């Protein structure tokens, strides 16, 4: 069995090593050596000087528009924006001077003059870069006035995102996020000068355009201009209603990040303490989304094997390969808009959130003898798109709305704080039955490559009949881990394969056709990267030969989701990934199950409820779904036309 990361994949190690030429600059009298092309901001950081920034974000290309980061460069009349000044020659930089201080103060004052909003009623109070700057530069009054009446668009119509342009500081981070990081292009700059706004096409509500609800723009907005739709009131009302049975499922990615909301360093897992908090708040049961992640793996793995059989043996390509994963609702909507012709490649599996929702209001309610109409099913997700997903009309297969409220990490953190508990102080507590025991495979769903790795663990064992540990150390399938934009791996199956296991009985006759076969796999995160891979597939390139591709809408996978704590950066996302892989490893160390098809609760589900097996009739009804080709044309019906003009 071999694994071969493909050559030429951006960011793959082993590429030609280039030693960059360097240049020595002076920062406040200290000499530092930086690579040619490094920015003044980077040089200053190296010299131990912090320069304030606003439009700069480590995930995004710089535009140099807010001007808060201006510094002196010797010999230049004007100040220079340090974030956008690439150093090519030895220069002398002063990060602080009377002119710099006055300029920064004035710029903050101007931002405050343009800004309309009050901190007390703002979701970003206490975590707002504009607030920080105002404090840092000692703004003690509104020197250039202050807008008290909102005059700009406040869009509250969408299921996931609220946009209050009265609080916008025009940093363009959202636009760069949406077009360059995510490749969506739902937002743009409209108008000119003072009337410039960051806006969807024709200043339509964000829910009417090609936005995929990924929330990445929220994570990078320095202010309260972009926020998630807050659904916490609905949850409080349910908890306070004695007739309701309120359950919550928690996904792995929020658990790896929630600690950040309570002052813990990124990468501190709080899974078990969170369970206590949720009970304290008043949830009747706390379940682990990993349960349905395991279920997803079995359903999706089976679907993959069936697709391969259909395509490779039966010559039937009505369900083509590569099969695309379908657990990221932002990614699903991305494909529906931008590549509807590839929807047949999308796995029909619902996401773990929705599978769980459908089971809670059927199997669970039945077992517990509760009227499903009285069950309020809440989910804790890293993701704003989950809100949209839970409201999709097709997500009612249980006869009810499968998931009533999808909360983000940030919303739940607010509830916990509001309740008056300090998460880090709580005792640890297990998940509740009957879904209690999950596996490590479910946990790693939260990181890019996780679904792939989990699926491989299961598929390899189902097909070979051997333990995956015999093939990969500790069952860690490292070629699919990492943060490169796209990862490509090949796994060659042995010539000896096992018998078809019971769980797949009757679905395929044997594995003969897979003997010695090479499975080609890819892992993609961030929809801008997805776009590259999809274009390659459309053009019949290398990725079109893949069998299975994991796509996640968000950079880093779910742990970088749009509902996660702010701020975000590659370092923070890596720390969260460590927490996730740590939890998976913990399952191994403590003898817990790490492979989805060994999850006893899942096996019981197939025995008791989904009796015709994975991808069987009942599972199809409850756990699988269909997609809507949406396209990119924006039907405006005359609304908004002519709006946002420059006059």
């Amino acid at each position, binding site marked *: 069995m071999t694994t071969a990361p493909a050559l030429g994949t951006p960011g793959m190690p082993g590429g030609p090593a280039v030693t960059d030429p360097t240049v020595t600059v002076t920062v406040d009298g200290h000499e530092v050596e930086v690579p040619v092309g490094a920015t003044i901001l980077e040089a200053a950081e190296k010299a131990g000087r912090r320069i304030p920034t606003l439009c700069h974000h480590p995930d995004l290309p710089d535009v140099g528009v807010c001007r808060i980061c201006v510094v002196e460069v010797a010999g230049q009349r004007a100040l220079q924006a340090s974030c956008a000044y690439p150093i090519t020659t030895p220069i002398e930089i002063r990060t602080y001077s009377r002119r710099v201080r006055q300029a920064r103060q004035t710029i903050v004052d101007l931002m405050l003059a343009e800004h309309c909003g009050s901190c007390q009623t703002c979701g970003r109070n206490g975590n707002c870069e504009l607030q920080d700057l105002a404090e840092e530069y000692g703004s003690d009054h509104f020197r250039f006035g202050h807008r008290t009446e909102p005059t700009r668009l406040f869009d509250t119509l969408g299921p996931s995102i609220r946009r209050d342009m009265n609080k916008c500081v025009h940093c363009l981070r959202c636009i760069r996020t949406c077009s360059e990081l995510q490749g969506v292009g*739902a937002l743009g700059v409209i108008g000119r000068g003072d009337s410039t706004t960051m*806006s969807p096409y*024709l200043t339509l509500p964000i829910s009417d355009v090609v936005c995929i609800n990924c929330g990445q723009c929220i994570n990078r907005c320095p202010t309260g201009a972009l926020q998630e739709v807050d659904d916490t009131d609905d949850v409080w009302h349910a908890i306070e209603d004695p007739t309701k049975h309120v359950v919550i499922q928690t996904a792995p990615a929020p658990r790896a990040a929630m600690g950040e909301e309570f002052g813990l360093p990124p990468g501190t897992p709080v899974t078990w303490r969170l369970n206590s908090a949720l009970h304290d708040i008043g949830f009747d049961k706390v379940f682990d989304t990993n349960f349905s992640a395991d279920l997803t793996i079995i359903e999706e793995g089976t679907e993959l094997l069936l697709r391969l059989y259909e395509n490779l043996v039966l010559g039937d390509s009505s369900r083509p390969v590569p099969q695309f994963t379908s657990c990221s609702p932002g990614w699903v909507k991305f494909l529906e808009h931008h590549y509807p012709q590839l929807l047949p490649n999308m796995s029909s599996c619902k996401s773990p959130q929705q599978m769980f929702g459908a089971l809670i209001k059927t199997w669970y309610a039945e077992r517990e003898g509760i009227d499903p109409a009285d069950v309020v099913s809440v989910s804790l997700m890293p993701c704003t798109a989950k809100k949209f997903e839970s409201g999709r009309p097709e997500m009612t297969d249980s006869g009810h709305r499968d998931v009533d409220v999808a909360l983000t990490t940030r919303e739940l953190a607010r509830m916990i704080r509001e309740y008056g508990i300090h998460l880090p102080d709580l005792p640890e507590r297990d998940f509740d039955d009957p879904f209690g025991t999950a596996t490590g495979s479910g946990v790693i769903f939260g990181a890019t490559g996780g679904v792939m790795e989990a699926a491989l663990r299961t598929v390899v064992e189902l097909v070979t009949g051997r333990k995956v540990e015999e093939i990969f150390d500790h069952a860690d399938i490292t070629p699919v881990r990492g943060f490169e934009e796209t990862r490509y791996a090949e796994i060659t199956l042995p010539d000896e394969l096992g018998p078809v296991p019971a769980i797949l009985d009757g679905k395929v006759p044997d594995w003969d056709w897979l003997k010695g076969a090479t499975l080609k796999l890819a892992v993609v995160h961030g929809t801008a990267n997805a776009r590259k891979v999809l274009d390659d597939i459309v053009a019949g390139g290398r990725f079109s030969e893949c069998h299975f591709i994991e796509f996640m809408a968000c950079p880093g996978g779910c742990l970088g989701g749009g509902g996660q704590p702010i701020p975000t950066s590659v370092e923070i996302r890596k720390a969260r990934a460590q927490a996730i892989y740590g939890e998976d490893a913990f399952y191994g160390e403590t003898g817990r199950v790490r492979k989805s098809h060994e999850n006893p609760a899942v096996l019981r589900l197939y025995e008791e409820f989904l009796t015709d097996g994975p991808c069987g009739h009942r599972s199809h009804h409850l756990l699988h779904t269909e997609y809507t080709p949406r*396209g990119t*044309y*924006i039907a405006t019906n005359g609304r*908004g036309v002519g709006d946002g*003009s*420059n*006059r």
Partner: protein
Amino acid sequence: MTMLPTEVVQDNADLIEAIDALVARYGNDRSALIPILQELRQQRRQISDVAMQVVANRLGITPVDVQGVVTFYHFLDTKPTGTHVIHLCRTISCAMAGMESIATRLENELGISFGETTPDGFFTLEWANCIGMCATAPAMLLNRQALPRVTPDEASELVARLRAECLAQRSGNGANGAAHGSAHGPADGNGAPDRTSGASGPPTGA
């Protein structure tokens, strides 16, 4: 890029044809965007919602990107403009030479404010910033042709004549009516600054 929905294609056949012709002429890369929009504005007096989306589709960019460009430039209009578009310069040399009284006269004659189009669709009134006619201020552009040294009375006469022409054209009386977007009246022969008369600049006052 995905396809446009069939009903959009059916309902806008001539628009799409016009855009495709422009794309054939200017190419489909990004630098063709502004020439295409300029020409489209010229042909159809407006760059409509559908037009922006079709152009975006053909150039492989997003509609909001196209709208961003359209709303950046004063001469690209999303709203339909009138048969005749007047841009009155409101910058300093013209302001010092009596722009205000021309502005008032135009607003009164047309019954609209700057930024608006008359209900009959004959006129759109816009501000311009310095149009490089400062030596012959106050100046305006009529259908993008420069008119030097405008007086309030000339402005009234101009409006009256153009309106009459438009009406004649509309009622079919004006067989060779002139509502084709070029300048008339005082503008005649002056549509392009007249080099021999000195009206457009130096040697000025000579």
